[in-house]
């Protein structure tokens, strides 16, 4: 009689034990599969503090200006962003997290700045902001901030695959007089030092961001151009299709990581 009582008890014990073990393995597994680090994790505590607090983050100056731009009428129809999109915190939530994306007419990928330019041209009938101008950075940072805390989610669009692949090839292509690829530093030597600076893993988690070295806000393309001139390669112009493809690959590589826009970096 004793074993009859024992058996269910033993099974139950094994059952819960197996469950617990499975859960622990899952937890550990998740940690192992996602060992990716945002540039934030490589920063000093004092630089992290700047990003953590909106009342200290200098990038918020651009965001506040962007908020004003969102409601500013422009073009011959006197339309503002808000005329079509309404309140940005609702309508722009998640938008920055899914760009670059395919543009319907040209069937080519465009980044967020190019999307803003298209809106200005087609819907506002206004002069588009040139890339990397203060105005462009303001509106981009305001739109970008609405996705803060959301995971980077490249669109599930089969048409993107070929472009993302081109971006990957570029990422691994050696270039410039120093003959280095992006992957040489950011895949193979991430976390090590380049001069006094730590090499991050090149995840575009916080753009546009305030870089202490720039003493200003800058887009991901400014960062890419910096890296290219760093390896003595000739940088592509702003908005070049090569950059959009590279941004696509970076987004795919960082898929699932949280957006921190507007970030601060050293």
């Amino acid at each position: 009689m004793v074993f009859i009582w024992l058996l269910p008890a033993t099974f139950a014990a094994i059952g819960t034990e197996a469950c617990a073990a499975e859960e622990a393995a899952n937890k550990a597994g998740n940690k192992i599969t996602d060992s990716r680090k945002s540039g934030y994790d490589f920063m000093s505590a004092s630089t992290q503090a700047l990003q953590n607090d909106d009342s200290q983050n200098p990038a918020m100056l651009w965001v506040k200006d962007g908020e004003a731009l969102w409601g500013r009428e422009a073009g011959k129809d006197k339309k503002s962003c808000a005329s079509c999109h309404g309140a940005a915190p609702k309508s722009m939530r998640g938008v920055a997290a899914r760009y670059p994306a395919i543009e319907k007419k040209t069937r080519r990928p465009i980044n967020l700045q190019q999307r803003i330019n298209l809106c200005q041209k087609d819907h506002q009938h206004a002069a588009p902001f040139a890339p990397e101008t203060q105005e462009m950075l303001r509106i981009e940072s305001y739109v970008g901030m609405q996705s803060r805390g959301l995971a980077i989610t490249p669109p599930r669009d089969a048409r993107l695959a070929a472009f993302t692949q081109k971006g990957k090839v570029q990422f691994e292509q050696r270039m410039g007089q120093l003959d280095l690829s992006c992957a040489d530093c950011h895949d193979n030597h991430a976390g090590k030092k380049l001069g006094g600076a730590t090499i991050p893993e090149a995840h575009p988690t916080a753009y546009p961001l305030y870089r202490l070295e720039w003493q200003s806000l800058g887009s991901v393309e400014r960062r890419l151009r910096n890296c290219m001139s760093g390896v003595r390669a000739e940088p592509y112009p702003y908005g070049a299709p090569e950059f959009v493809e590279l941004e696509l690959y970076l987004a795919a590589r960082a898929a699932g990581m949280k957006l921190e826009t507007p970030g601060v970096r050293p």
Partner: protein
Amino acid sequence: MARTLITVPPNPKKNTVIEIRALIQHPMETGLRPDVEGKLQPRNIIQRFECRFSSGGKSDVIFSAELFPAISANPYIAFNFRATQSGTLGFQWTGDNGFTQAETVSLVVV
């Protein structure tokens, strides 16, 4: 007009020490850097920051600072203040080329 971000804790309790934060957009050009053509860019900095507290017809400077070329762009200044009564905080930045920026924030002590 420069964009500013001023943070004052809302409705502090009487006699508590509060932290006041003021951030302003400004290039703080040192006057020592050449431009792309090799010519020195003229100095353009904020020289002075001042915060006044006004209440019941009385106005006192509660904090002031002199700024120099070594201070970064978009300077951020934080200081502490004992909130003894309600009033108005007046912030003033003055600098090269006649730069001046004034902001006011009301302080309501409970």
